[in-house]
């Protein structure tokens, strides 16, 4: 049962991910990205990470995507009149070859690395309480440092977008 759900969600995530890349209109890419976020959130749920799943939907599918859509609409992007310049054959071949190579390494690596996982001894691994526990103990410093990162991003956004700097 669980495996069935996993396969379905993984397939949705993969297909929507591919569709994000292959759309010509950014709005459609963004909409497919939402589908992708939901599928990944489902995968998190299957891994007993309900907090991450909820955050994924609230923050990514909710806030960030709304922002994306707003920006796309404000920029009023239309279908490009002429096709964007293509890539040279050599570039295409190199890209495909490298992608295939890393895919092979990945598949091979994952088949070899069958580490016997602990059999779900704790169901509480991904829930809110245990995340809070590690966030305020072992990961206290990274948690605090993140606030500096956000402050830098805010200040930067203000500098680049404020109409008049004095």
């Amino acid at each position, binding site marked *: 049962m669980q495996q069935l759900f996993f396969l379905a969600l993984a397939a949705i995530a993969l297909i929507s991910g591919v569709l994000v890349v292959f759309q010509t209109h950014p709005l459609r890419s963004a909409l497919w990205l939402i589908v992708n976020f939901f599928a990944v959130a489902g995968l998190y749920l299957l891994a007993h990470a309900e907090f991450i799943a909820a955050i994924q939907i609230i923050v990514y599918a909710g806030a960030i995507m709304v922002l994306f859509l707003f920006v796309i609409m404000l920029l009023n992007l239309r279908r490009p009149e002429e096709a964007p310049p293509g890539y040279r054959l050599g570039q295409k071949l190199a890209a495909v070859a490298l992608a295939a190579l*890393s895919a092979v*390494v*990945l598949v*091979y*690596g*994952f088949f*070899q*690395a*069958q*580490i016997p996982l602990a059999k779900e001894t704790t169901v509480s691994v991904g829930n809110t*309480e245990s995340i*809070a*526990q590690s966030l*305020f*103990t*072992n*990961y*206290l*410093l*990274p948690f605090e*440092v*993140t606030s*500096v*990162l956000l*402050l*830098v*991003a805010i*200040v*930067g956004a*203000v*500098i*680049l977008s404020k109409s008049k*700097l*004095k």
Partner: protein
Amino acid sequence: MTIAIPTFNLSSIGPWLTLTVAAILILLLDALSPKGRKAYFPQLSLIALAVAALQTWWLWGQSGTDFARMVFLDNFAFYFYLIVILGTTLTVLISRHYLEEWGKNLGEYYALLLFATVGMMLMAASNHLIMLFLGLEIMSIAIYVLAGLFREDARSNEAALKYLVLGAFSSAFLLFGMAFLYGATGGNLFIGELAGKIKEALPLTKPLTLLGLALLLVGFGFKVASVPFHMWTPDVYEGAPTSITAFMSVGVKAAAFAAFARIMFAAFPAFVLEWHMLLWVLAVATMTIGNVVAIAQTNIKRMLAYSSIAHAGYLLVALVAANQLGAVSIIYYLLAYTLMNVGAFGVVILVGRKKDSYLNIYDYAGLGFQHPVLAAAMSVFMFALAGIPPTAGFVGKFYIFSAAVQAGYIWLAIIGVMNSLVSVFYYLRITVLMYMRPAEADLGPIAFTPGLVAALIITCAGTILVGVFPGWFYDLAVASVKIFPAL
């Protein structure tokens, strides 16, 4: 449920705290103080940097970890703290007049500069890959913004956008690599413990670890501007404000190499052959392409950008050598490079004037007759960058190539030396232009402001002193690489 917060000692991140508090203070003062009374931000930044340097000096000699093993306390980190603080101090000194010319002497500039410094320190000291990533992002985001500070200037916009898009792309590579390592080590990302975990799981997870290692190399390769991840460098260095170009070329490079070296030395002894081979190729390509393409440049900022790529190549040679002398030479060379490169950019700012009107290398013709002292200083920096004694650049290169020979990489050393011979051409061309060509037009007055003069005196004297008396700096560096038992 009770949560027991692990004990920690705030003084072990004292320098970060000082700079963060100073940056926030500058932002607040900027918002609260009336117009036209904001001239004191550079001084405030300098005071904060001095205090941070003092705190680092107090920390010197400590060892261990703090904050639930998140932060390394060791001399390797502290030496890089000092290098980064030096780079930022010099940047603050060369900034003010230049920014005033552009009407951009903003409080936010200094605040972001200090934040970026904090990010660099985090990279040098983090014991956990998540801390490393946070440091990298704090540094990078601050610098993306600073590169685009001149919003009216199309080239500055281009620089910021290019750096942001490619930088985010490379961060993704780095993060992806960390994710693979997380999987391969069974969920342990402490740099100090990675080596053991990787070795434990080696038979099962070799391909995954290798993939993680390769992706980490891509991420770091981008930040240190190594070939083939260097394409952004010339455009970003040319378009960014010159003071920020100086800051990027020394600060980002030092921080990225600190983290790079620590991870490679501490976490991957099980993969020594693999990463040596990869970095050998990267080092040769980086040195050669950087130096050869630099010859063709006529814009001084672009020339120094390619020179910076070439210097990343020399540092990669030291990384490949991976012996004690190699680690020492990375630290020593980054110190020397900070002095000589910021010095060179200081001269570029002085000669550039009027919103960077004079950036062509032929604008330097005749400088030796009209401003002999300035030309002499520029010559010192060019000699140092080319690696000619008695400057710090020579001693640094000497250490690097001896380390390569000691480690048995004879050909790498030979290619390196040949490359630095190539580099002599384009560095000395500036000197030749200054002294052996008449000025094409009257250069006009150059505004020698106190900050720039102080920066030039410090860098010029430093370049020579660190080169003539390398002993003390060398000993400090030896003391700080003792933490890598594998070397």
